[in-house]
Every structure is written in structure tokens, then in C-alpha cells.
């Protein structure tokens, strides 16, 4: 078992690199500790005295590179999140994150699907909107204006009732999240005129594997959202975090090019590849 996990992991990393370099992406390696971080309401970073925070994802630094004109980039990054420990979570884990300028959400989803096909041999993914998934699983319209649903309630339903219906036979991409769950994605309106986020997530066999955004490029809007996240943190008795001022300045000038980015858990991909029940079985490589 151990030898096969070690071998599969090495193979997977090599094929990820082939996939992106053959598509003219540049591999980058960004700092893992920095005084600044992107505050998120429900992610707690580790603080390193005198150095700042262990980065919960390479997003802040990769976006600064995009602003500086890097073109398409990818990074295989160690990420750190305090208190996250479970069958699918470890406080330290490995993520593959990529950005391609000029991709809209559709192109971003297509690239993700192509990635899964080439790297893991997966069949084509079904695409299901957030509203369709809720209707299918629990017969509820999450955007019904007559019965407004709280973010918290929707999140609980998604976790307890909807997720288990996603990606059963084929991989499934969930897209058009509620606008107030946009995180760092742009917002738009769907065919019904409902405000939605251009955010998507990939599920397969009960595992949430990847999160993608058609990236929000407006620094004013981004600052507002990060302040909202910090307010939420304070309300939840968690410390507010410093804003990523260097990134916000770079988004002002020279600006973040329109792009779509995806972050995908490599340990979880390994779990699916070898049929592991817990992330611990694949994370150490032994």
C-alpha cells in the first residue's frame, strides 16, 4: 500500500506539471508565510510570531503575480488551516491552484473538466446549478424571495442533505452560488434574473474536490468583502486579520487581469485515486 501511494503521488504530481506546462502555464512557488493574508470568515490561519501568518492558500501571492503580468500560472502548494481535522481535513495539506487570464466561468469549468480527464481519467462532469441541486435534493428553491434563507441555513442544508447527492455516478460541478456566498468571485444574474456568484465547486463520490472563481477584479469591492469577513470573524469571537494591502494596491494599479482560478485538493484527489477512506491514509505518503 505505502509503495503504491508514494508512487501514485509522484506520478500524479508529474502529470499535473505536464498538463499545465504543455498549456503554457508557468509553475510558481510563492511565500508560505507573510505578514498579510486574505481574511476569510471561516478559515483560521496559524500565526507565526514575528513572521505573520502561514498562508491558508497561495491565492494572495498568485494574484499579485497575475497583476504583475505573469500570464497563466499554477502552483502545487502546501496550505495551513488551524483546527481543521477530520476524514477530509488536515491542518496542513497540499493544493494545486491555477489561474488563466481571460477565462470566464464557462472556460474555467471546461479547463477543470479537461484537467480531471487528463490527470485522473475521469468522465465528463455533469454541471448543476446551486438552485437545481437544492431542488433535486430537498425540493427547496434557495433563491425564493418569498422565503429568504439565511446563509447559515443554506450551508447546513448543503452539508447535511445536498452534498451527498452530488457527483454520485459522474463528477458534478455545482455553480452559481448565492451572491452572498461569492467569496472572491464576480457576481452576475442567472437566467431567472437572480443575483448569483460566478463560483463553482467540483464533487465526485461524496468528496468536495475543487473550488473555482471567475475572479473578482475590483479592489474596492474586494476590500468591502474582506471587511465583511472580518466583521463576521469578530462576531464569532475570532480575531480580525490584516487586509492584503499589497494585493489591493496591485489590483488598483496595474490591475488584476480578468481570469478564472481553481484550487483543488491533491490529498483528496489521491484518496479517490487509491480508494482511501481518510486523508491520513494518503497524506503522509507512507
Amino acid at each position, binding site marked *: 500500500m505505502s509503495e503504491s501511494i508514494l508512487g501514485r503521488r509522484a506520478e500524479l504530481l508529474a502529470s499535473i506539471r505536464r498538463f499545465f506546462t504543455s498549456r503554457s502555464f508557468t509553475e510558481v512557488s510563492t511565500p508560505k508565510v507573510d505578514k498579510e493574508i486574505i481574511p476569510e470568515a*471561516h478559515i483560521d490561519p496559524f500565526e507565526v510570531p514575528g513572521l505573520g501568518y502561514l498562508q491558508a492558500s497561495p491565492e494572495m501571492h498568485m494574484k499579485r503575480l497575475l497583476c504583475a503580468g505573469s500570464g497563466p500560472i499554477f502552483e502545487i502548494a502546501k496550505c495551513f488551516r488551524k483546527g481543521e481535522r477530520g476524514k477530509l481535513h488536515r491542518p496542513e495539506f497540499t493544493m494545486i491552484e491555477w489561474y488563466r487570464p481571460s477565462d470566464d466561468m464557462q472556460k474555467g469549468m471546461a479547463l477543470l473538466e479537461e484537467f480531471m480527464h487528463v490527470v485522473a481519467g475521469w468522465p465528463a462532469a455533469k454541471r448543476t446549478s446551486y438552485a437545481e441541486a437544492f431542488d433535486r435534493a430537498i425540493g427547496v428553491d434557495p433563491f425564493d424571495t418569498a422565503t429568504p434563507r439565511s446563509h447559515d441555513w443554506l450551508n447546513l442544508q448543503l452539508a447535511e442533505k445536498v452534498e451527498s447527492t452530488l457527483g454520485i455516478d459522474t463528477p458534478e460541478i455545482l455553480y452559481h452560488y448565492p451572491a452572498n456566498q461569492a467569496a472572491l468571485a464576480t457576481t452576475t444574474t442567472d437566467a431567472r434574473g437572480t443575483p448569483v456568484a460566478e463560483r463553482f465547486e467540483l464533487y465526485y463520490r461524496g468528496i468536495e474536490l475543487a473550488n473555482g472563481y471567475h475572479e473578482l477584479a475590483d479592489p474596492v469591492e474586494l476590500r468591502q468583502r474582506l471587511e465583511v469577513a472580518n466583521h463576521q470573524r469578530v462576531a464569532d469571537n475570532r480575531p480580525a486579520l490584516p487586509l492584503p494591502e499589497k494585493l489591493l494596491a496591485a489590483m488598483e494599479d496595474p490591475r488584476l487581469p480578468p481570469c478564472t482560478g481553481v484550487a483543488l485538493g491533491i490529498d483528496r484527489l489521491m484518496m479517490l485515486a487509491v480508494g482511501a477512506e481518510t486523508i491520513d491514509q494518503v497524506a503522509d505518503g507512507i
Partner: protein
Amino acid sequence: MPSTYNTSDFRKGLKIQIDGVPYLMVEMNFRKPGKGTALYECKLKNLLRNTVVDRTYRAGQTLEAADVTEFTAQYLYRQADGYVFMNNSDYEQYELSEEQVGEYARFLKEGLDCQLMTFNNQPIAVTPPNHVILQVEYAEPAAKGNTATNVQKPVQLETGAEILAPAFINTGDWLRVDTRTGEYIERTTAPDSE
């Protein structure tokens, strides 16, 4: 012991109380869908009824700690409506009802060291060792020539329990018995204390 536990303290083995009922956290799974709040999916065993319930808590919620302790206690004797045990370290005595002792009663022999559980210093459950050695009070004589070990017959133990044992077991033999299943394990010699 803290008086409450935060979700970040949640782990298997935690003893908590809900509405005055003690529970043991027998499973805890951390989940974090998308960009949302962390969820803590727990299986909680009701320590009074031995039933298991599923509960999901969101990050930041708290549960009240339960003053549940476990210690070694010796079975002393049976009395009209219950069973009396004594804490081996401070000699304090506890009486448990027939319902609390349940199926284990048939393997209780005076002097047997058991694990006793209390909630707010009231006894709530007792667990004997997994294996006990008991003498056969009565066994039908083995049928002549029948040496097959897979043939079983009922035998009566010194505590009154009736279990199935191989045909070659005789009255007066000492048997090792599994208290969880009530199954015969092997014939053995008398324990040292005898």
C-alpha cells in the same frame, strides 16, 4: 474539568450532558463544506440508556461537561433490589439496580473487580472484565464416546448463568467465559485466589 466544551475541544471520548443526561461522544467527524462554517458531526451515546443519537454542531457552539468518572469496584453482594459494589480505592459502596446491571448480573461473583461509572457521584453503569473464570455447578455427564468438540450442551455456572459449553465439560470444571457474548472460551484451571 472545564464546565463547558467548545467545538474545538470536541473529540471521541468526551463526556458531556444535555438536559441533565450524560452522554459519551463515541464519534466525531469534522466537516467544512465549501467556504462555510465548520460542522462537527457527533454520535453521542446516552450513558443512562445506551442509545446513540446523531447531533451536528456548528463551530463556536458549546456543550456542558458531565462529571462522569470510572473506577475499579469490587462486587460485594446481592441484596433485595440491587447489587452492591465497593470502590477499591476509597471503600465507598454503591448500589446498582437490576436494570443498571442488566445481562452482566449472571456473571457476577463476589470479589469480582468491575468498572463502575458514576454521574455526579451516582452509579449509572457497571462493566465486568471481558473474561471471567467461573466454576461449573452442573453439567450433564458427557455421552460415552462423544469426543467431538463441536457438539455443545448447556451447563450451569456457579453464578447461576447457563451457557453452552463443549460436550466434554464436567461438573466442577473451571471455564473462561466472555461476559460480552456469554460464550464459552476455554477450560482452564482454578484462579489463584481459590
